């Protein structure tokens, strides 16, 4: 069976800058694939390219067999892709409830999903009528992921969920993300290697805008040489 998401050798420009110079990633329908790489490697740009926010100039993105080329971001999202950006993008003036309602694609999406969402993120139920702008960083991250769960998405693109969060909050977040994998495929960008390695089944390493290496997470963990080569800070 082919993968849920296939990114094939994409090249993306931002302005005149050639940011992605050949990225290939596959995400299976269940389980978590981690996108690894140093700061500025092109991880965020890869997610934005998939969403159509920075559409690739060359190469192909296929979701569930359909080519995404030429589609607008709203159209791509409607196919069943949820995006959780690194800056979380919580609407500050909207309540938690409204932040979730806005993600509905059909009337009743939220009603159908709220029990599951509150089970995974119990805090959100207590905070339901709060303005998004008053949540803590960890609560905003939970809300950002919850928002991506409101419609029937089959793929989540999650960018740096652990960034800026306290260790105990990160544990909760990891547990939550792990719970999602029987329903969705996840492409996870995560700088915290401990988090990435505990969550992901597969990984892809990006370096200077190119995907340079891919494999199964257990193999990476067993190889200090590979970790040294691709992920050490130097």
């Amino acid at each position, binding site marked *: 069976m082919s993968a849920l998401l296939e990114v094939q050798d994409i090249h993306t420009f931002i302005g005149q800058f050639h940011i992605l110079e050949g990225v290939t990633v596959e995400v299976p329908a269940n389980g978590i694939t981690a996108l690894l790489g140093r700061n500025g490697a092109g991880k965020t740009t890869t997610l934005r390219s998939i969403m159509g926010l920075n559409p690739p100039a060359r190469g192909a993105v296929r979701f569930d067999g359909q080519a995404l080329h030429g589609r607008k971001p709203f159209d791509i*999202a409607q196919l069943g892709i949820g995006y959780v950006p690194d800056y979380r993008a919580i609407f500050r*003036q909207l309540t938690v409830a409204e*932040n979730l309602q806005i993600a509905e694609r059909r009337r009743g999406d939220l009603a159908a999903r709220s029990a599951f969402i509150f089970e995974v993120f119990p805090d959100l139920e207590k905070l339901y009528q709060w303005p998004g702008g*008053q949540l803590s960083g960890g609560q905003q991250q939970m809300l950002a992921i919850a928002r991506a769960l409101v419609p029937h998405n089959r793929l989540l693109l999650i960018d740096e969920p652990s960034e800026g969060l306290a260790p105990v909050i990160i544990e909760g977040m990891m547990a939550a993300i792990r719970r999602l994998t029987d329903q969705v495929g996840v492409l996870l960008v995560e700088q915290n290697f401990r988090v990435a390695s505990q969550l992901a089944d597969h990984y892809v390493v990006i370096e200077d805008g190119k995907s340079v290496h891919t494999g199964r997470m257990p193999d990476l963990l067993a190889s200090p040489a590979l970790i040294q080569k691709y992920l050490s800070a130097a």
Partner: protein
Amino acid sequence: MQPTLRVNTFRQSLILSGLFVLGLLAVNLIVFKPGTMAVVTLSGLYQGMLFFLIAAGMSIVFGLLDVLNLAQGAFFMLGAYAGFAIYGALPAGTPIEARFIAALVGATLTGGLAGALMEIGLLRPLYARPVYQIVMTLGLSTALNEVVRAIYGPAGLVPIEEPPLLATTFTIAGGQFETYRVFIIAVGAALMVGISLLLQRTRLGIIIRAGVQDSEMVQALGINVRRIFTLVFALGTAVAALGGMTAAPFLGAYPGMGTDFLLVAIIVIVIGGMSSYEGTAIASLLVGLTRATAEQISLQYFNTPILASVSILLFMVAVLLIRPNGLFGRD
């Protein structure tokens, strides 16, 4: 657990606005006889509602699309002329009430349709180019004024006939006031509440409020933001055109009639705090009351209405000294 922070700043803005209202009423009480005061207050509300009908769309569009639509005054004028055209086009025997209602509806639709065409045809290519937008919206406004001048002549049209029911005056505390201006106040108030409900209670309202902050994320959630932009822009111009038609029985229609209102509307938006809807609504009324009060003082003591326009500017300066971002401005 109760959210408090935002509520507090909002309350401060409300209190400050309330203080301005009290100040204006105090001036009225000291300077005017009761009858004059009642008429000045009603007149202030009447003017304020007209300012609101132009400014409401401008401020929401500014928040959502980052575009200051300087053609908004031209849509006000367009509404008035569309009203005249519909009055004239209906068959001879049509009762005035039917003409009037048809003109209100027709002007609103004309304004909305013209606004949608403008957004799609002229504005879309210019997003993220603020200078071009200023030139385009201002140029369109001038062009519409000239088109109207060419078709209907420079003199303007005599005011539309009002329905008999509204063409009366009444006495309040000894002062005389036209019923029709109360009708304008009622139309403005209904829209003020209606737009507020739209923003707070509907899905479109949630999308607008979210889009003001981050329209890219709204789009990434699966919402066709382009279509929302067109819809919101068209709603704004429709309301302005409705305002122009509502004012037509009183002001008539003449080339450039929107321009005076546009300038005041911009001041209203600045006083209110740019993209804040509540700010625009409250600032409209404050500016209307300020203007009416200053006008009456000016007429009473100096025999000229000259202070009316100056007073608005002074009021803006006063507000900005206390609140550099306007009454309901953020940051």
